[in-house]
């Protein structure tokens, strides 16, 4: 079944999203908006130390405070064994996750949860936190990635031995893993090069910065049945992880998806949910936990800070002969930085005959990193896309032409393994070249940069069910939390298949007890994978509708056709009948076989790689070092845009996060390893006055593995901006910035140094 190349009525239009009115009137219920009878409030006590042994926790005074109902520490959670879990786009260990939610034996970063309290009001819970007495033995700490790799670095985990090196190490290390892959003969490749450029680029940790802090309400009944309402990127993920961490049968947890106020990967794991469940169990009350913004910054996963070393060799005509990349990523307190995807993305866009890519996953005394939009790729591409620009300058070539010359195309075997099929990278470069922005004149002190990005996208398990109501309206239920408008896309795909108006289809996000398993919202998978399930369920409904028409007409189902929301006799031989609209078949369903509905539970394959190319113009204020974004064009192969406005929105939003990463955002630690800027005043994300309009150009190279040609779109757009901005700054001000963020003091220092 494919709709690629067909004349479509709903897909590609811009209807108003069905959950929109609730969101513009304040009625939508997010994580913190839920209240249940008898509910009390939980608060989490956090370590003030970057690294400390927990010697003793005394909650007696807190428990004596009137209104306090329960205190929990690691002693209230099972001490679970190591077990690997696939967490969206990264590997994660349940033991680590448990210890991240509640420190056991050691606090590993400033902000690590060490105890929690539940009380009748937030004020009492807050006061009780102060009465919990924790005795620490403060230990030496390490935050910087290369310092953490040093032989004499303070060790976070005595039992951590570096994987991926031979012979097996005999001493523990902060390096959790070394990854390496090669292609061709790297030394030969550099020997053949006319020009070799070798550079080092660095980044600081940045936070996803979703505006909604983590929040949940948990209930544990006396018979052990639990319910969780929380803001997450996967309520099935919440159910599975909580069951694992607390030793509860999955069937005894019902998890519901609150409206989610942004996640960007940061809500693909749990923080407050198991704590609320433990407090609820101990107190006998439903417990609500809402993080403060400071807790979000100190206690939840930022993206890895990193060091990226890049060496590129090329012939005079720009053809790449060799590439060597080394990536060192901070994992935070537990192994699991996205250095693996970083290594795979680093050179994925280019047809390089000889390559060597090495990655290091390094623990340090910072919050455990969480996925952040194309996890690992922005760091790697910051290095490679900047270095390509430096190579273009050294060769005297146009940076766009250099990319065209080396762009991966169908049939090229990527450095990380796969042979490309049906990819649209070259199409994005062609669109960039043809765009008026690429040739627009620039003023004095202005510069233009270009950079590209690649992300795999994922498929995976999804369930969708489609029900035809008695009046011919339709409900589509899925298990995917809607983070950016995916419900409207589900309704549109179902409406297209059924041939009805999109307003006749109501999409909902069903709880974990009401729909089959669905993997979390991440990896740009929902419109692709859950959309595929919804399309499949709708197709089965069409089959059923044809059968019902056949019953009514007393002909064979094969003699019925479905078009424009109606059953037609397939030809003259089928008989002469007036077409039967969906509503009429629905109305008569009791007499033709009962309710009409279908479910599709799939493991979607073939997500379709995503490529994008961005053009950015900047102006640099040479007096202050401030960089102003003057114009921005983001071009991306999106496969097929179901709802183009929300696809454009993904591009525009990703660009803006990338610009924040480029110019302002960074975690700043003091000499004791405490985070100094855990708030939006000092951790500055872009605001409306920082940006121009962002031109989103949708290139559509259909993904043949999806019925409508969809590729994931959400992650690619955060990858190119850092290098696009740096490349533009170089052309505007003649200085090459290689350390993010390119904040005014750094730009100014570079300008002053250049002046001499």
């Amino acid at each position, binding site marked *: 079944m494919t709709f690629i190349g067909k004349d479509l009525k709903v897909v590609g239009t811009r209807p108003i999203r069905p959950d929109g009115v609730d969101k513009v009137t304040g009625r939508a219920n997010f994580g913190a908006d839920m209240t249940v009878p008898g509910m009390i409030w939980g608060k989490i006590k956090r370590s003030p130390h970057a690294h400390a042994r927990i010697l003793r926790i005394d909650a007696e005074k807190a428990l004596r405070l009137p209104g306090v109902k329960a205190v929990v520490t690691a002693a209230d959670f099972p001490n679970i064994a190591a077990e690997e879990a696939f967490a969206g786009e990264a590997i994660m260990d349940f033991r680590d996750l448990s210890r991240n939610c509640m420190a056991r034996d050691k606090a590993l970063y400033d902000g690590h949860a060490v105890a929690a309290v539940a009380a009748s009001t937030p004020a009492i819970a807050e006061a009780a936190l102060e009465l919990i007495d924790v005795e620490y033995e403060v230990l030496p700490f390490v935050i910087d990635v290369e310092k953490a790799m040093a032989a004499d670095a303070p060790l976070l985990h005595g039992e951590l031995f570096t994987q991926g090196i031979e012979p097996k190490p005999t001493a523990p290390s902060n390096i959790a893993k070394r990854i390496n892959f090669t292609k061709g003969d790297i030394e030969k490749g550099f020997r053949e090069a006319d020009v070799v450029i070798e550079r080092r680029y660095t980044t600081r940790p940045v936070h996803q910065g979703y505006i909604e*802090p983590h929040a949940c309400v948990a209930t544990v009944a006396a018979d052990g049945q639990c319910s969780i309402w929380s803001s997450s990127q996967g309520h099935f993920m919440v159910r599975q992880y909580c069951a694992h961490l607390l030793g509860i049968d999955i069937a005894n947890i019902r998890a519901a998806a609150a409206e989610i106020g942004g996640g960007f990967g940061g809500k693909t794991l749990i923080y407050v949910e198991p704590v609320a469940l433990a407090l609820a169990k101990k107190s006998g009350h439903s417990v609500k936990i809402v993080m403060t913004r400071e807790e979000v910054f100190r206690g939840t996963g930022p993206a890895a800070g990193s060091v990226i070393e890049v060496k590129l060799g090329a012939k005079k005509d720009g053809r790449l002969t060799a590439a060597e990349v080394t990536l060192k990523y901070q994992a935070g307190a537990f192994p699991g930085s996205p250095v693996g995807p970083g290594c795979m993305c680093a050179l994925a866009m280019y047809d390089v005959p000889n390559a060597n890519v090495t990655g290091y996953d390094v623990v340090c005394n910072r919050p455990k990193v969480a996925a952040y939009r194309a996890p690992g790729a922005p760091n790697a591409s910051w290095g490679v896309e900047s270095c390509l620009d430096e190579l273009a300058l050294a060769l005297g070539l146009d940076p766009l032409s250099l990319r065209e010359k080396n762009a991966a195309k169908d049939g090229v075997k990527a450095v990380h393994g796969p042979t490309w099929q049906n990819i649209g990278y070259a199409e994005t470069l062609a669109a960039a070249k043809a765009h008026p922005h690429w040739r627009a004149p620039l003023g004095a002190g202005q510069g233009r940069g270009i950079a590209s990005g690649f992300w795999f996208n994922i498929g995976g398990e999804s369930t969708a069910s489609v029900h035809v109501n008695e009046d011919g309206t339709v409900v589509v239920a899925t298990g995917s939390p809607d*983070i950016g408008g995916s419900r409207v896309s589900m309704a549109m795909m179902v409406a297209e298949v059924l041939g009805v108006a999109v307003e006749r289809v109501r999409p909902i996000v069903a709880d974990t007890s009401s729909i089959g398993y669905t993997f979390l919202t991440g990896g740009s998978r929902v419109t692709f994978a859950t959309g595929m399930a919804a399309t499949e369920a709708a197709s089965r409904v069409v089959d059923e509708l044809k059968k019902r028409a056949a019953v009514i007409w007393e002909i064979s189902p094969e003699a019925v056709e479905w078009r424009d929301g109606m059953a037609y006799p397939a030809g003259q031989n089928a008989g002469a009948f007036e077409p039967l609209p969906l509503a009429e078949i629905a109305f008569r369903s009791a007499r033709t076989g009962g309710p009409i509905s279908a479910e599709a539970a799939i493991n979607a394959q073939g997500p379709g790689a995503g490529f994008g190319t961005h053009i950015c113009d900047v102006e640099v204020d040479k007096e202050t070092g401030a960089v102003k974004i003057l114009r921005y064009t983001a071009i991306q192969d999106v496969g097929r845009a179901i709802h183009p406005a929300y696809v454009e*929105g993904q591009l525009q939003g990703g660009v803006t996060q990338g610009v924040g990463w480029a110019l302002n955002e960074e975690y700043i630690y003091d000499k004791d390893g405490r985070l100094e800027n855990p708030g939006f005043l000092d951790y500055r994300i872009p605001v409306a006055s920082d940006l121009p309009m962002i031109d989103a150009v949708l290139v559509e190279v259909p993904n043949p593995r999806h019925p409508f040609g969809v590729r994931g779109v959400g992650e690619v757009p955060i990858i190119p901006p850092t290098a696009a901005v740096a490349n533009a700054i170089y052309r505007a001000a003649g200085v090459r910035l290689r350390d993010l963020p390119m904040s005014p003091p750094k730009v100014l220092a570079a300008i002053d140094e250049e002046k001499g």
Partner: protein
Amino acid sequence: MSKIHVSTVINDDPVEYLCEPQQSLLDVLRDELNLTGSKEGCGSGDCGACTVIVDGRIVCSCLMLGAEAEGRKITTVEGIATGDKLHPVQQKFLEHAALQCGFCTPGFIVAAKALLDENPNPSEEEARYWLAGNLCRCTGYDKIVRAVLDAAEVMRAEAAE
């Protein structure tokens, strides 16, 4: 510590409540009055998700005490539409897809309404600077700014009729 009695007007309705002296207006709205449309993104006046209009001026309700609402006139996101008729800013947010997750949206709707009450014909730059106190992490602001400027045009046309 005894609670403070407050009489105020919220969304044109007279309202009385008791609040603790340290309770913010945002906490009163959300936890005492069940007006959960105003959101807490930061609690420090940096994100604007809790924006309300107090006597014609936009205020971060997390920075104002519940007790300070005595005798004031307050509009929250729940009071922007008229019955079942959306305000043009709300309608244009929907038409332009100016929201993704929707968490910052209430604050933007309130701030944009206040902008257009004060300046019916803002330039793009004026709109961007007025809205610079509201953080959105999803949209890149492009569609938000377009929605506000489009709403301004609709409102000017309505006013001219």
